[in-house]
């Protein structure tokens, strides 16, 4: 058994090292080429990318994985960095340009072909990408799946790697430029972010409020079966509930900021385009026309945000009432 665990550990470590090394080498090769063509020069994106890699890597290396085997709440912090925080920073840095520049022409065209394939495009559309992000957490929170992943490092690696991949796929679409073909509409980006928040609240509230220990069967768990085990799980549930939802609220703010920038650029370029007469009417010429055009959408947006917050609140209360009635 010890041999199996060692091989598990070695394989997981090797796969993580190889993945990170490839990304770092591509950045070292591609960033100087890419930065020569970008004006104004800014290294903030590179910093975000490296920070994202480091943070997502925290779910595989360092003290978190070891502590995560002892404490449920540390394991949830691992999930938080692997699924949300790390991928979010990586996607915000939009590293596609320099990673592509770091590849050879042959590899670039092959990877491009894969990324443009129908399967990948289908997986990266709003509904499947959001579903995968949510499923990547929910599946591994099932007590049986959680215990199995705790027992076998290869399985744990698959779980965490799946979370990072689902996170990068989701956030790169959410923070991607609005003007590209196949880019998500901004309304869809906002709605998917709300769906992810609701899923975090639902699972987080359920784990926080429950009165019995569900993960005490996990092997190597320091706190298994003790009274401390329940408070450990409560803290873990709170991590899924609040910090994860806070990160998604930051995502909502960033989406709205990106939407505003996209609209401003579109407005600034309104005279450069030679569109049809009906398309030209998209751009109001007077303040009255502007007010007329934006009043309806603004009201709808306000209503959507209000309904979003109220439904999250309703979910929390409904979960609390259900859990309290169960015990």
């Amino acid at each position, binding site marked *: 058994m010890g041999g199996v665990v060692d091989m598990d550990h070695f394989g997981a470590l090797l796969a993580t090292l190889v993945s990170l090394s490839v990304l770092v080498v591509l950045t070292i090769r591609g960033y100087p080429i890419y930065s020569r063509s970008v004006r104004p020069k800014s290294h903030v994106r590179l910093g975000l990318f490296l920070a994202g890699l480091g943070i997502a890597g925290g779910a595989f290396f360092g003290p978190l994985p070891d502590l995560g085997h002892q404490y449920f709440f540390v394991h949830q912090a691992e999930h938080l960095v692997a699924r949300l925080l790390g991928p979010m920073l990586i996607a915000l840095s939009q590293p596609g340009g320099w990673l592509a520049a770091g590849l050879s022409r042959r590899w670039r065209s092959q990877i491009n072909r894969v990324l443009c394939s129908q399967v990948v495009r289908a997986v990266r559309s709003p509904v499947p990408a959001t579903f995968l992000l949510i499923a990547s957490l929910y599946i591994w929170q099932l007590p049986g799946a959680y215990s199995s992943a705790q027992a076998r490092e290869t399985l744990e690696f698959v779980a965490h790697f799946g979370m990072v991949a689902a996170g990068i796929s989701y956030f790169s679409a959410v923070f991607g430029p609005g003007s590209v073909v196949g880019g998500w509409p901004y309304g869809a980006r906002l709605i998917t972010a709300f769906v992810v928040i609701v899923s975090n609240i639902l699972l987080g509230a359920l784990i926080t409020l429950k009165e019995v220990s569900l993960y005490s069967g996990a092997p190597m768990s320091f706190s298994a079966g003790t009274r401390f085990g329940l408070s450990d799980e409560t803290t873990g549930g709170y991590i899924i509930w609040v910090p994860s939802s806070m990160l998604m609220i930051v995502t909502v703010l960033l989406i709205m900021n990106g939407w505003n920038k996209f609209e401003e650029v579109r407005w600034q370029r309104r005279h450069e385009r030679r569109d049809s007469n009906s398309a030209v009417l998209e751009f109001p010429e007077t303040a009255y026309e502007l007010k007329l055009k934006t009043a309806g959408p603004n009201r709808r947006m306000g209503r959507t945000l209000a309904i979003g917050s109220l439904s999250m*609140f309703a979910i*929390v209360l409904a979960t*609390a009432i259900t859990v309290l009635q169960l015990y």
Partner: protein
Amino acid sequence: MIVIVMTLLGAFWGAYLAKKRKGNRLDIAQHAASCAILFCLIGLFATIMIARALG
């Protein structure tokens, strides 16, 4: 009980804040609703912690 008291307290506090900042009726309603939600959640956590502490 704590939840209800905290919710009412939050609603009053939100309405007071909006009124102090010279908001109109909708501003007052918005502030009251958001503060009521916030205080209700704090109350919920407090209730759970007290219930767990009392055993």
